[in-house]
């Protein structure tokens, strides 16, 4: 079952939270909305859920055959969150604290109209099944206050799944948890999704989380969608400088492109697969720290090593360009760092093995 978001606009006073968002979420997909805070990702999620009303646009929900309208701006049709049958998981869990874990999960079944309500025995069976699914059936009689953060979020997920939602929406589901639990839970979420195949959208500002968990990632910025794609597409072929910068540490060089070469400062670097332009074009070059090679006498820019810090198997090196055009960050494998006997205050060559080139004027302005 899929969701179609068409030209959704939302303003909060003078602030444009969402500017004409178009998005299709396919059946059984797990989609991540990724972006910095204030980019509109949570607003979009809440609009899909029906917790927020857009100013204009349409939201379609497609079941097996014909579509169902969730929101239509022109004839001001808006289905209440209650009727949309979405499971919503909140960043701060929002468990009912006066109810036991069991009662929390059973809530969605117990509030059904009398004619549709399952018997207590069926509810019990169903709730225990869900608690086993989230591996917390031994906590059924506890209260939320007695659980850890990770346990609470799993209960919140079980509660959302109890109503057999058509769509599962998760708002920064792991945002309030510590790093270790976060990693564990996101793998667990991925496995759970592979098991259940319920169409899911989750919001995150953590690029690792989005890249690791999602089938497709939607990168948002300032109320617009910057790029939609699989994690590999997004990471390897970022469409805009923003996406490139948001997905990890970057080095930025300003220079020119001509004859298939990047001219940065005094260095000329061969660009793989880049069409040679006749005239020189001003460009911005991005490269990740781990794509930078350091050497004593190879090609590339001259830079002085300012400092180095070991982090696991790599050495993070800070360098200052000799021509005075800013700093460079590099990550060098520990073996080569030791083999080449680099040290502080040495002048070395910086060679970007991979460069991402942005020449379009509008993207140049965007940074």
């Amino acid at each position, binding site marked *: 079952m899929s969701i179609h978001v068409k030209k959704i606009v939302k303003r909060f006073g003078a602030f444009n939270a969402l500017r004409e968002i178009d998005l299709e979420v396919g059946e059984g997909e797990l989609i991540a909305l990724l972006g910095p*805070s204030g980019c509109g990702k949570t607003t979009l999620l809440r609009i899909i*859920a*029906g*917790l927020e009303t857009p100013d204009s646009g349409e939201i379609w929900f497609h079941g097996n055959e014909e579509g169902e309208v969730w929101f239509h701006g022109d004839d001001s049709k808006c289905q*209440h*969150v*209650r009727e949309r*049958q*979405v*499971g*919503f998981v*909140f*960043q*701060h*869990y*929002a*468990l*009912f*604290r*006066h109810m036991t874990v069991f009662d929390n999960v059973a*809530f*969605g079944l117990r*509030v*059904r109209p009398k004619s549709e309500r399952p018997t207590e025995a069926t509810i019990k069976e169903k709730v225990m099944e869900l608690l086993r699914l989230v591996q917390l059936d031994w906590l059924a009689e506890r*209260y*939320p*206050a*007695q659980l850890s*953060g990770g346990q609470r979020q799993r209960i*919140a997920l079980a*509660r*959302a799944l*109890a*109503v057999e939602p058509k769509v599962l929406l998760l708002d920064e589901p792991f*945002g*309030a948890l510590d790093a270790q639990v976060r990693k564990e839970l996101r793998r667990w979420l991925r496995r759970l999704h592979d098991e259940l195949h319920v169409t899911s959208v989750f919001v995150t500002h953590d690029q690792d989380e989005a890249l690791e968990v999602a089938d497709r990632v939607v990168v948002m910025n300032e109320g617009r969608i910057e790029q939609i794609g699989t994690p590999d597409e997004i990471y390897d072929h970022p469409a805009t400088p923003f996406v490139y910068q948001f997905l990890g540490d970057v080095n930025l060089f300003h220079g020119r492109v001509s004859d298939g070469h990047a001219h940065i400062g005094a260095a000329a670097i061969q660009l793989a697969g880049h069409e040679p332009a006749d005239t020189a074009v001003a460009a911005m070059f991005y490269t990740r720290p781990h794509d930078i090679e350091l050497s004593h006498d190879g090609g590339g820019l001259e830079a002085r090593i300012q400092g180095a810090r070991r982090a696991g198997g790599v050495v993070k090196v800070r360098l200052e360009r000799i021509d005075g055009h800013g700093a460079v960050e590099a990550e060098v494998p520990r073996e080569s760092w030791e083999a080449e006997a680099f040290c502080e205050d040495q002048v070395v060559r910086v060679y970007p093995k991979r460069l991402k080139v942005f020449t379009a004027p509008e993207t140049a302005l965007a940074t």
Partner: protein
Amino acid sequence: MFRQSNVLPGFNISLGFTIFYLSLVVLIPLSAVFLKSFTLTWDEFWAAVTAPRVLASYRLTFGASLAAASINAVFGLLVAWVLVRYEFPAKKLVDALVDLPFALPTAVAGITLATIYAKNGWVGQFLAPLGIKVAFTPLGVVVALTFIGLPFVVRTIQPILEDFPKEMEEAAASLGATRVQTFVMVILPSIGPAVLTGFALAFARAIGEYGSVIFIAGNIPMVSEITPLMIVTKLEQYDEAGATSIAAAMLVASFLLLLGINLLQAWSSRVLPPAAPDQLEEPA
């Protein structure tokens, strides 16, 4: 057993002061009430506290207080809800109005209420044709006690309601709960202990109220005499032992009632464990 380690020293001296202070302010005056009433023999004491006029006054005082506190629990919750949930012009003014019964001299409140609810008063003139008499009846007592009890309920519920996370309501709605179900199953249980506390405070205040009631009650023997008035009447007749006997009886009854409410509250907050701090946080 009394040894406790704490980052702040001074457990002994602060506990000592607490006991001294409570004795000075509460225990000694109250025990004087009992001591004075012991000057009577048991039969005299029993006769004083169970005289028909006195029994009628108990019924009125406790009955009217209970009614007033119940009314306040319901409408005070409504007022608190409106003040917390909605934005409207002059909200601050309305908010300040709630405290007025705290500050107003009770006699002023009593005279005002008696005037407007009298047969020819602003409100009384519309009620009179319907056969409803407020001033100088037990109903008037309830009105006066409701007036003075309102801020207790509102001010107890308000902060709890303000802390109530909106996400919890949204969660209930997304799970298919109707608005009524959300209120009854999610919101009410969370603020229940606060409502109960407000109710207890309003009730306690109403039992002891004197100033505002005597003006509107009419003080008709067996009908609209409240117990505090009985005590004052006895004192005016220089029957100090009689007055303190009634006071002692009232004290015991109030104490038992408040103890009961406190136990009920302790039970309800055990059933409703306190919120974990991270559930109270505002989402970023």
